[in-house]
């Protein structure tokens, strides 16, 4: 790497050595700066802010962790319905996210956008907005707007997944092969036929792969929606935590793991079938 960008000059080898030395000094400065920054962060956050008394030494920590190990299996029958709710919330949220990301992707793809000066920046902004606000915050906003229940969870999951789905879709639309589109236009296809036979078949595999990927992530997200009042496994987690029933908490975490493993298996086969 360093040999390629070495300056070519009449000084030849000496200049090259000096260049290398400079690079090495630069790298050392970079590393030293990074270490100093991390050290300061470490001191400020960990050493300064932590309440060491509260932890009660290594024994205290081990004692607290120990309480998580007595798994409360009696809770198991009560977890089936919340697990199903979580799965459904993720599925419906993904579906709604897909529907909502259609216009966003249309606005945000440079080659099909209705207006380059208004809708294109708007689409791009919506993508960033959706991704930059955490799902917990979306859920809080929607709980405020539509009340408790599964609905705010679905809406929050949908809002959070718009960014990713529409970004990938917009990129897929921007990268399509224009030849089929031109061919359909040349034989007299109308605008709808161009869309349906020219663009959609080209981007469909990418989009379906993305949707499956996003669904997988959305299971994780909807498992925490209960923490802010939106049903599912998160609500059971919250309740068990509030009751200090740490064995039950462990079981809920295990249930989330099982649910995600199921989701992973389904998405693995689905992706294989599509691609």
């Amino acid at each position, binding site marked *: *790497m360093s040999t390629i960008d070495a300056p070519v000059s009449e000084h030849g080898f000496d200049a090259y050595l000096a260049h290398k030395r400079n690079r090495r000094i630069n790298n050392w400065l970079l590393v030293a700066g990074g270490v100093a*920054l*991390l050290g300061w*962060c*470490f001191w*400020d*956050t*960990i050493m300064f*802010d*932590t*309440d060491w008394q*509260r*932890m009660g030494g290594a024994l205290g*920590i081990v004692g*607290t*962790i120990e309480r*998580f190990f007595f798994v409360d299996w009696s809770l198991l029958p009560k977890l089936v319905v919340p697990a*199903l*709710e979580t799965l*459904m*919330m993720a*599925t*419906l949220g993904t*579906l*709604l996210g897909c529907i909502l990301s259609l216009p966003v992707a249309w606005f945000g793809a440079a080659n099909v956008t209705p207006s380059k000066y208004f809708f294109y920046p708007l689409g791009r902004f919506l993508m*960033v*907005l959706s*991704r*930059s*606000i*955490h799902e*917990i*915050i979306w859920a*809080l*906003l*929607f709980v*405020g*707007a*539509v009340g408790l*229940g*599964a*609905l705010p969870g*679905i*809406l929050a999951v949908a809002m959070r997944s718009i960014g990713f789905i529409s970004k990938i879709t917009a990129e897929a639309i921007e990268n399509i092969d224009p030849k089929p589109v031109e061919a359909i236009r040349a034989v007299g296809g109308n605008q709808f036929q161009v869309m349906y036979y020219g663009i959609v078949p080209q981007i469909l595999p990418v989009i379906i792969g993305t949707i499956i990927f996003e669904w997988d992530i959305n299971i*994780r*997200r909807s*498992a*925490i929606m209960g*923490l802010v009042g939106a*049903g599912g496994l998160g609500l059971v*987690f919250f309740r068990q*935590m509030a009751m200090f029933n*740490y064995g039950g*908490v462990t079981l809920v*975490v295990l249930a*989330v*793991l099982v649910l*995600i*493993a199921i989701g*992973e298996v389904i998405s693995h086969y689905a992706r294989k079938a599509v691609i």
Partner: protein
Amino acid sequence: MSITATDIPTIPAPKREWSRYRHPQSTIRFAVILAILAFLGWSVAFLNIDLSRILGAFPRLAEILATRYFPPDLDYVTDADFVRSVIRTLEMSLLGGFFGVLFSIPLAWLAARNITVSRRIAYPLGRFAIMGSRSIHETIWTILFVTVLGFGMLAGTLALTVFCIGFAGKLFSDELEAIDMGPVEAMRSVGASPLQVFQYAVLPQVRVAFTGIAIYTWDVAFRAATVVGFFGGGGMGWYLKRTTQQLESTRVAAILLVIVGLVLLAEIGSGWLRRKIGNMR
């Protein structure tokens, strides 16, 4: 009597339509689509969702944002304590990202099928560690760490570290599985130890990609760091929780604006850095 051409009944040719999928596949496809639709319908019924409320939710959200949240209380976010919490959020994300990347590299090495130390023991172990930290959402990690270690940034940093292990570990191991095996086999055939193989045959191939992934991991960790405080992990999330519970919506609006702005800056910065590193390749 002669037969004219018009008398001959024309036998219509069997109408043949082209379809992409033949009999068994088309039936399976139909069944799968039907099953998905049935599941969706069942979900709507089971969760008792009023479809008209979904459409009504967005105007309602806009109305609430306009009436209650609208003049964002910008004085609140320029307060010294709040600025301090923002800096601490940044510190947490840096530390969490750094340690996460540090721990995820060896784990990714174990979890990469082609270069792992042993396929029987190390591979499932590494895979499980990465999968486990990925599957549990960072807020749940935060709550668990807060329970064990108490409120404060230590819990938040650890939660972010675990989150980053899962996030970066997956990307790292994918990257490792795609490397050219030639140098690895050459090193192995001359009797190099696994560590030497990793250092001289694997690392040079993935160095640039790893740096890019590490920067991206920090970007994602910062997004997560804005809310770990909500569950007691320190940083600006704690202000968010306090103002939300006190229903001080104008302050919530100001905090949200700050979060969006910072995440936007982080994204632009990390994108710029990644492009720069990609050009060095």
